[in-house]
């Protein structure tokens, strides 16, 4: 079964020079348990695609399915419910809730999705190396630590699909590699499908399937 299906998704934005066609009929499937990488130049529409897949943004045309559920047919509440239950999102920053401690942040999404498992969270925290930071607040963490907590929070909820937009973009190479390793290991461990947006061909190479976005269309990565 596919965790994510995009069928001929199009999206354009108004701009001073007229409408900019960012996505022109993009189709993509991400089967359960697989890891896909998405690369492309800056401004090519990677984030837009990811936002549409998460239901944060609406496509102009085409269909989006999360598992069996049609995201494009759902209203705002329906999209939110799908996100809550099935999708884990990781952005480059602003992932954590500033008013909650690391521990509360880690458990937050799992509790929202009613899949809280204290033992699993402890296990994740240890794997991610944030077990010592549990009582801290997000702004008391380094960028790498924050991202590791964000990954932990996302996986603790056992989502069927993880969408990550340059999760290691703000980190140095070595840290970024370590964080990404963990993420790949852990998604494999939980059986989640992963769609990872990245600039780095080196990181993309570590995913099973690679897509490249150019001129609003997907092509097999070189």
């Amino acid at each position, binding site marked *: 079964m596919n965790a994510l299906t995009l069928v001929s998704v199009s999206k354009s934005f108004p701009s001073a020079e007229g409408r900019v066609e960012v996505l022109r009929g993009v189709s993509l499937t991400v089967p359960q348990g697989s890891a896909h990488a998405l690369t492309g130049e800056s401004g090519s529409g990677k*984030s837009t695609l990811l*936002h549409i897949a*998460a239901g*944060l*943004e609406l496509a102009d045309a085409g269909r989006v399915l999360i598992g069996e559920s049609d995201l494009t047919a759902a209203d*705002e*509440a329906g999209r*939110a*419910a*799908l*996100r*809550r*239950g099935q*999708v884990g*999102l990781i*952005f*480059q*920053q*602003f*992932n*954590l*809730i*500033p*008013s*909650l401690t690391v521990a*509360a942040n880690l*458990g*937050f*999404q799992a*509790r*929202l*999705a009613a899949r809280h498992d204290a033992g699993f969270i402890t296990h994740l925290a240890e794997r991610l190396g944030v077990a010592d930071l549990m009582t801290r*607040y*997000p*702004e*008391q963490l380094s960028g790498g630590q924050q991202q590791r907590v964000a990954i932990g929070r996302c996986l603790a909820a056992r989502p069927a699909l993880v969408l990550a*937009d*340059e999760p290691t*973009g703000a980190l140095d190479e070595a840290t970024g590699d370590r964080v990404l390793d963990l993420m790949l290991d852990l998604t494999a461990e939980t059986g989640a499908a992963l769609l990872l947006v990245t600039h780095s061909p080196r990181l993309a190479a570590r995913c099973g399937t690679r897509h490249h976005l150019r001129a609003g269309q997907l092509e097999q990565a070189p």
Partner: protein
Amino acid sequence: MIRATLSALLSHWVRNKLQLAMLLAGLALATALWSGVQALNTEARSAYATAEALLSEGETARLEHRSGQVSLSDFLTLRQAGWLVSPILEGRLTLGEARVTLIGIEPLTAPPGAGPALAAEDLSRFFAGHGFAHPQTLREIGPHTPDLQSSEAVPVGTVLVDIGTAQRLLETDQLSALTLGQTQPEGLRPLETLTPDLRLIPPGEGAELAGLTDSFHLNLTAFGLLAFAVGLFIVHSAVGLAFEQRRAMFRTLRALGLPLRHLTACLAAELLVFALVAGTIGLVLGYALATLLMPDVALTLRGLYGAPVPGALAFNPLWALAGLAMALGGTALAGAQALWRLWRLPLLAPAQPRAWAHASARGLRLQTGLAAALALLAMFLALRGTGLVAGFTLLAAVLLAAALTVPLVLTVLLRLAERAARGPLTEWFWADSRQNLPRLSLALMALMLALAANIGVGTMVASFRATFIDWLDLRLVAEVNVMPRSAEEASALRAFLTPRTEGILPMQRVDAQLASQPAQIYAMKDHATFRDNWPLIDPVPGVWDRLAAGEGVLVNEQLYRRAGLLAGDMLDIPQAGSLPVLGAYPDYGNPLAQAVLALPLFNEVWPETPIRQFAVRTDNATELIAALQDDFGLSPAQITDQAQAKEISLAIFERTFLITRALNVLTLSVAALALFAALVTLAGMRLAQLAPLWALGLTPRQLAGLELTRALVLGALTMLLALPVGLMLAQVLLAVINVQAFGWRLPMQIFPDDWARLGLWAALAILAAASLPALRLWRHGPAQLLRVFAAER
């Protein structure tokens, strides 16, 4: 460089227009309320001055008789002996639709100052029977006043006529007083031998309006100051938040090489411009506000003190300058902390929400310390303070101390709620509320102040009202009151009434000084009406028998408290000698001191005092009134029945607090605006805090609902805090301020219905304040929230 800096700084306001509007509105409102109140005070005081100038009470000595009436023969005696005296006759009467004070003077002999606006051409009209009145009085009297001329120099509510006309209108041949010219011929026979009964009142005395109304104006000023403070809360929080939001910009500007001094100067200049703009708007608003409230204030002052205050307002440039200065000073005060923080800001201070919270943790400790110090001061003042100023200082200390503890108490409460919370969302809700408290706390403090002031003043007024109504029922037991116009009519009335009624209680009084206060001494007939009904404070045993035997006096509560009398103390009564105080009686709504003597003793000391009124006890008031009109031929204006008397007293009471209520509502509105300002500003900063929740699967609608709930919960907690503070305030008002200002102490009564109503209003105000940001979040949430993640695009 300066230009570039300024344009960078100002660009913030261009992008945050609503926030700018709030900042300006806060300052403008603060200025408006303060300067509005000041305009009212200035106008009222200048009205007193007009009144005093007209009556020449300020500079001219007067001759008066204790009875309040001077006979024509005394006047003639003095004139023949060569004294330069001029007659005055004052009285109340109904003209057209209005009750007015009629003042009769003799223009030729009147000292300069009396009838100052009467030019030569007016004089001829004056003698022809024309009267003069303020344009507003003319309007109040209505169209049927052919022989009245308009003149601004006459105080409102007064009609100035020739003495002969006055005697004719008031149906008397007596005079009220004689004014004494400032320079008198040499070698005259002394006044004491010519007219031994007349009392010389030196210039300056008798001008009591300013003194009497002081407490009222102090009250207004206190309210104005409170409103100003609440307004400054808005400015302070708006400025603070704007600085906070621009922290990254400051950092960039400094990183680009802009000296800190320049940056600070630019920001100070920005504040100065805001202060000038908002101050000017505030002045206009304040003037409009004062114009709106002036009629109420005038009614209050006339009702309470009989002070002739016009219902219209004149513009005074000095007032405008003072108001602008206040706006500038307030802005400096409100912006000082922000500028100071900027000055001390390390170049790389993190612009993180929690860092802000940490910085305010220190502020919280400081605030708590300050609150403790103020509470101590309040305690000291409550135990030791005397005087009106100490009373108001106590009030301010209590209010400020309470306001300063608001953030601390809320933090503790929210922490407790967080502990008790089950479920991720509620946990987050409380944690997040606590996190954002520092940004909201100023607005919440303002709300607390406004609510406490509302509860306090409301409780005071309602307690007063309840006491007053009970008291009226006891005091106004006479079924009918009749006012004779002359001594002959009085004796005829007595003869007419005696067979028809259960009891006739004559009302006689003389003016005097008691315990060096302006006072009135009344005669009281020994009658069951008084024995059964009059409430007494600390009476001696057998008080009524001793009073009837002429063994002492009763005093009103005002005199009792102001002079610090105790039952049994001796009180000097002019001409009657020293008599023991037998007890005190409540006497609300009367600014003067009073003493009551037994009727026989009174008549012995002041024989021939005219009877002003008969209070009549009867079983059948309707029949008696009919008989008085039809058989005796009394005019309806001379008769008041009990219901009328109560109505009049209650109307006066209601007027007294009209202005207080208006200011109460205004203060609450300003507080709601403060909350609105804070929430709107906060809404922008909160996007980054809410965006992750949205990504995690909460709808914008849910988020908006939570935001609204948060505002309501914080408001409800604040209301809860305001309750005890308001009651404390009411206690201070009832037991300290009222005693100092009016001379009576009232028991506090509790009116939970009023609280419920206030709570409802506050909830509505909070909802109104919170709904715009919430609505925006709901409607435009996705676009706005996406922008947070798009920042990394």
